[in-house]
């Protein structure tokens, strides 16, 4: 009982202390009263300590299966392994909100440690804003959805975890996404602090760049992990379905991507200041919106938690944040004036601006498509939704545009690019891109968007390689080193720029995978007897037979299929059908043969007494490129994030202008 009480009282005292912190931080900031500020900051740190205590007690209760607590009884059971009992902390609604809050308070603590001696005039407002968000979540946990609620009669066994979620990918996907999601609150708080205090110089922008990058990285990899899990576990052969919750996780990532680009213009040229502030605010609002969509039940979704009754609290908070933020922007418009004007279409600035317009347009298109069922029900009284065709139709052309900018942007010079410069830098990439089209047509690939995506990717990849080559050559001229070390020196001395190019490279590879696997996916459904074969595209599948297995938590039937390509055996896949005992639920484990050129995806269904079985086969061309692109993307982001001084040689500077 002690731990349950500890948890309960911790979150209640945290609520009180968050209010204290908000009050003293803001008043301290306005009155420039350092004692008030200190009270505000210390209360925020105590909130952190209390939330750590509450989280630890909830985790402990889950580990010892204390079924007196409703949350425990609903999310674990006697047969669940320790690893999944731990992950049940974020497996349900109350726990996931706790994790949100825990991360938020942790970031708040880190921000305090990091900035106490630096951004003194901003800090009280930063802490205050962070605590407003914390207060909102504490309010939910104290009054709307209680993690330490008790069962009247504790059950003998709990309900357990959905077997679909008993997978390591699904265990790390939510916290990974949350680390990113919650991270966006920090830049938002600095933004609000800068707006309130009127200190809108470059200082706050520099402080949050790394935080945004951090949040953006985890948001991005979280999305990728989610896709990888869906592909492996859900058995429909895809990785992305434009589901409301998927969209909700993508939207803040898009606006944050836009911000990471346009902030470079603000640093270098003092332009787009209002725009940057708006992007940060939008990212924050979309984050809260995403957290809300997952829990409100207003949009039906794969990932949603149970329908809950506190949707209106989120809505009220969203409107409040929206109103206050834009009011502040409005009052500070005069301080957000641009220092320069755009000079030419063919400049780095124009490229960045265009990229921003595309990112924000995609965000709005996705938002509109996601909210359409709600709007249509309100307006016409009939629930109409737009499916993946809508999202594809709108986003594919815009994606192509992005793909072009991905390679063309870095080739542009600041302010204005002269014709001779353009010729010099664009010639090779354009030739390579056209060569790509030629090769595809030679292989009789005519799908318009696939050809476009491929040739634009090739164009962008060659443009990026050219940049690396030119930079490395410059260093090689000064130092006689081999190309590898020059490449290393170049990247390590210009981490932001060349790390960014590696991110671009990863995205171009990812785009190729997406285009090929969606344009040229082959799906066949067939019933086979043991020993029979079936052609899927260029591949032949031979059904060898099936085998039954029993483990501690499920019963399974596993089919064996040999895969032949041009007469040669290239592998074996084992699609499986399981029935879990608690909760009793069937699942499908797809048999996936991953390859460089294509994936074989086999789903297995019922078997009759003679061993005949139904199958669904898919050939997904270049699908592995998506995950490979994702790894390159992550590498690039990590390079951008590394401390500036790392990997640099003493006394040698090789930073490039541009």
């Amino acid at each position, binding site marked *: 009982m002690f731990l349950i009480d500890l948890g309960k009282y911790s979150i209640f005292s945290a609520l009180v202390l968050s209010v204290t912190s908000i009050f003293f931080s803001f008043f301290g900031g306005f009155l420039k009263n350092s004692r008030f500020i200190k009270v505000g900051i210390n209360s925020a740190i105590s909130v952190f300590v209390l939330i750590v205590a509450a989280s630890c007690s909830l985790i402990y209760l889950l580990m010892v299966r204390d079924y007196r607590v409703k949350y425990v009884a609903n999310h674990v059971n006697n047969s669940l392994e320790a690893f999944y009992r731990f992950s049940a902390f974020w497996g349900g609604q109350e726990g996931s909100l706790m994790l949100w809050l825990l991360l938020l308070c942790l970031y708040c603590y880190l921000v305090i440690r990091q900035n106490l001696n630096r951004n003194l005039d901003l800090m009280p407002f930063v802490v205050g804003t962070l605590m407003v968000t914390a207060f909102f979540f504490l309010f939910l946990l104290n009054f709307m959805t209680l993690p330490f609620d008790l069962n009247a009669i504790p059950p003998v066994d709990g309900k357990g975890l959905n077997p679909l979620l008993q997978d390591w990918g699904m265990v790390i996907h939510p916290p990974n996404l949350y680390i990113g999601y919650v991270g966006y609150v920090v830049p938002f708080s600095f933004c609000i602090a800068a707006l309130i205090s009127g200190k809108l110089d470059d200082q706050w922008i520099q402080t949050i760049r790394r935080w945004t990058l951090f949040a953006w990285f985890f948001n991005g990899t979280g999305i990728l992990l989610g896709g990888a899990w869906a592909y492996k576990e859900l058995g429909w052969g895809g990785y992305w379905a434009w589901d409301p919750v998927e969209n909700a996780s993508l939207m803040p990532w898009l606006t944050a991507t836009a911000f990471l680009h346009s902030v470079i213009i603000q640093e270098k040229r003092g332009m787009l200041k209002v725009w940057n502030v708006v992007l940060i605010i939008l990212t924050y609002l979309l984050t809260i919106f995403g957290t809300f969509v997952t829990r409100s*039940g207003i949009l039906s*979704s794969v990932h949603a*938690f149970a329908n809950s009754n506190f949707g209106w609290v989120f809505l009220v908070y969203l409107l409040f944040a929206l109103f206050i933020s834009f009011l502040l922007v409005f009052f500070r418009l005069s301080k957000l004036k641009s220092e320069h004007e755009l000079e030419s279409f063919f400049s780095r600035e124009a490229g960045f601006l265009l990229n921003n317009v595309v990112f924000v347009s995609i965000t709005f298109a996705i938002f509109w498509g996601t909210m359409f069922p709600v709007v249509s029900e309100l307006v016409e009284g009939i629930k*109409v939704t737009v499916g993946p065709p*809508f999202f594809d139709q709108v986003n594919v052309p815009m994606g192509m545009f992005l793909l072009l900018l991905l390679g063309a942007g870095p080739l542009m010079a600041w302010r204005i690019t002269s014709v001779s410069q353009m010729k010099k830098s664009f010639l090779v990439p354009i030739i390579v891109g056209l060569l790509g089209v030629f090769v595809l047509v030679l292989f009789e690939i005519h799908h318009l968007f696939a050809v476009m995506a491929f040739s634009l990717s090739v164009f962008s990849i060659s443009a990026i390689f050219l940049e690396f080559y030119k930079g490395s050559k410059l260093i090689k001229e000064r130092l006689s080193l081999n190309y590898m070390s020059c490449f290393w020196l170049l990247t390590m001395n210009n981490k932001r720029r060349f790390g960014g190019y590696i991110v671009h490279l990863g995205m171009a590879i990812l785009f190729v995978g997406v285009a090929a696997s969606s344009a040229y996916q082959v799906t066949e459904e067939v019933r086979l007897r043991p020993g029979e074969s079936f052609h899927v595209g260029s591949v032949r599948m031979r059904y060898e037979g099936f085998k039954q297995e029993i483990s501690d938590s499920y019963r399974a039937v596993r089919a064996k299929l040999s895969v032949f390509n041009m007469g040669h055996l290239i592998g074996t896949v084992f699609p499986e059908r399981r*029935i879990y005992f608690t909760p009793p*639920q069937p699942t499908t484990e797809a048999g996936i043969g991953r390859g460089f050129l294509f994936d074989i995806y086999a789903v297995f269904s019922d078997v009759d007494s003679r061993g005949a079985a139904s199958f669904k086969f898919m050939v997904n061309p270049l699908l592995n490129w998506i995950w490979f692109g994702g790894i390159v993307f992550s590498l690039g982001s990590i390079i951008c994030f590394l401390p500036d001084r790392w990997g640099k040689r003493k006394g040698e500077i090789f930073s490039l202008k541009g």
Partner: protein
Amino acid sequence: MSSNKIKFLIAGFVILSSFLYLAVSGFKSENLVYFLTVDEVVKRKVDSSLLRVQGQILEGSLKKKIDAMQIYFKILGKESSLPVTYTGVPPDLLENGFPVIAEGRMNSEGTLVAHNLMVACPSKFEEMKEKGELMPEDHLRLMEKALKRKSKEIPN
């Protein structure tokens, strides 16, 4: 206003309006899916629009032709019932009396030709029965992805 500024304004206008066109043109009728009840579908004039219907499978109406991978059943509404056909690997636990969602188009005989079929998952099924709410929507969507599942139990 400088000529440069006008140039950029025009360019911005062109770009934004083309994106707007993209977004609006995406709302073509073939991209829309109507969420309807069984009774609404039965009363509705047959057209080619994409429908999503949810309801319980009528007791005793389920017929399976396993070798041709075809199934046929009726979904029960409040006043009427709707015949549905589906070709392909049927979802797990498709049984009489179970709640399903079918997505597809109507043919001229008044049958819904489903290209997508989903079933509520059994663990939640009991819970829903207890509460008297047969279909919380979030949960049906969970199945939507999870379910490309099969109708028969594993042979022992």
